[in-house]
């Protein structure tokens, strides 16, 4: 069976993929449909949804267009999710590979280091890091990456430990390939499937983390994000529930879609292991 056929067998994954594509489309179309900055005050505040043309989701406390914020926010969420996951992979994959390949004392030291980061409460650490570095896209991406690399390191380490004594690795060693070459060219390509699955789930978690940070007021003050929209509307929830409702649905759908896609990728990439669902 082809890769996509296996993926499509999981119907949930297909639904997830469609939702995800729609959200990507939202992100791409945002500057075309709403060329004005989502921060601009364009109407009177607290306009309910569907009450006026051009403002399908109403306006917020400052008279900003909620629909525009939602579209522009999609871009921010996806960007931060993707970039922070990539950075986490850049930290976790090398650490896990080195620990798993060399073993011994190097493994010990690297794993204690990883454990340390796993013990620290994730979200509290992310808050402290962003608060100290000052909120910006860069600091948010870094903070999310710093709290999310340990599972990557553990996964890659486990894979390397089980692969390092395989025959093809022994053969590469006999041929005289260097350790770096063996790690990068022989073993790493064989660990990609579980890394890809984990990464897709990490993007989902990163989006949740970013929204929670900006909900608390730690978002980049220059970009409109879903978490910020909910946080800014928190105090007026009694008068205007819709201001918090729609961005929340957007986060929920995005995270749900990514999780479904992750499960589908798992089925498609690890056919032997795929559990019955």
């Amino acid at each position: 069976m082809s890769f996509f056929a296996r993926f499509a067998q999981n119907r949930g994954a297909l639904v997830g993929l469609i939702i995800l594509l729609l959200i990507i489309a939202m992100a791409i179309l945002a500057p075309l449909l709403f060329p004005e900055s989502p921060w601009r005050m364009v109407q009177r505040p607290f306009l309910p949804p569907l009450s006026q043309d051009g403002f399908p989701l109403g306006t917020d406390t400052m008279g900003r267009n909620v629909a525009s914020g939602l579209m522009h926010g999609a871009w921010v969420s996806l960007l931060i999710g993707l970039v922070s996951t990539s950075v986490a992979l850049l930290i976790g994959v090398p650490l896990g590979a080195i620990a798993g390949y060399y073993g011994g004392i190097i493994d010990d030291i690297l794993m204690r280091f990883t454990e340390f980061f796993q013990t620290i409460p994730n979200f509290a650490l992310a808050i402290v890091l962003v608060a100290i570095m000052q909120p910006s896209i860069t600091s948010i991406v870094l903070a999310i990456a710093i709290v999310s690399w340990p599972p990557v390191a553990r996964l890659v380490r486990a894979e390397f430990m089980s692969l390092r004594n395989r025959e093809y690795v022994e053969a590469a060693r006999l041929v005289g390939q260097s350790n770096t070459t063996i790690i990068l060219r022989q073993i790493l390509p064989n660990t990609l499937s579980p890394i890809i699955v984990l990464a897709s789930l990490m993007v989902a978690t990163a989006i949740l983390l970013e929204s929670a940070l900006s909900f608390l007021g730690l978002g980049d003050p220059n970009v409109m994000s879903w978490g910020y929209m909910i946080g800014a509307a928190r105090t007026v929830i009694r008068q205007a529930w819709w201001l918090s409702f729609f961005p929340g649905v957007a986060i929920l759908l995005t995270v749900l879609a990514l999780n479904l896609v992750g499960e589908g990728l798992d089925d498609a990439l690890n056919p032997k292991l795929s559990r019955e669902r």
Partner: protein
Amino acid sequence: MVYARLILMRLFKAVIVLFLIVIFNFLLIQLAPGDPAAILAGEAGAADQEFLDQLRERFGLDQPMYVQLWHYVSGIAMLDFGYSYRLGVPVFDLIMDRLPATLLLTGTAFVLSLVLGIVAGSMAAARVKKPSGSLIMALALVFYATPLFWVALMSVVVFSVYLGWLPAYGLYTVGAGHTGLALVLDVAKHLVLPATTLALFFMAIYTRMTRTSMLDAAQQDYVKTARAKGLKPGIIQRRHVLRNALLPIITLAGLQAGQMVGGAILTETVFAWPGIGRLMFEALQQRDYNLLLGIFFFSAALVIVFNIITDLVYSLADPRIKKGAA
């Protein structure tokens, strides 16, 4: 004997981790924007040099770095976390004041999520490939993907604003002057929404884990033996499958402690629950870095204590651990 050794080992590890966090905190204070003295003076409205120096001296900011580090570490070893720059109150007192509310909230949410998660997960495992089983798993996935703070806000809209069933803010009704049982009931009423919203996310995790773990356990030989003996399926599910499936869930519950703290920050912020999570939000808004880092250290310590407890529970639940201990 074995337990004493296990506890000692874990405590030793915990002290090292906490020590590293203290050093980490100290480095972060150095990175924090602005001179704390200037921040303080700016607040007081008088920023002349003399006053700044005075402040610097009072907070030990004029000493060389290693002396400051030493003061900081030895201070924390004696439970002195310094002062909140904004409130002028010792950080330790502030945290101690708020800790009971957080323990009440997270404790309730933890028990709630564990019980509901295990029940839902067992039900889903018993209904594999049936629509009802799939429905449970679909719900679990949705709760897993929902931002906690958003569920919290929406539950305020529905249960507090629209239906008017439950209070949305605070720990108890201010000014009602309840005492005794009336106060307990009042707090319990205030606890319902925060604890439930915090529990939902973790319930989703435990549901998924219980199901997987039970399906794994059901494949084991001893289950086949029990079935061959002619035991009733209900008894096999409870005595043989669930019992063994619980072990990985205990481990997972320990690992979730850190997440629980993070969840509490968000829930307490929404519900104005006077715990350390809400305190962290307040410290954040006022850029009160010393208080922020004090709470950060404390939350890490809480997680470590919880991890030690789960380790002990685990070794009690699984007698095989004893031999492997140390």
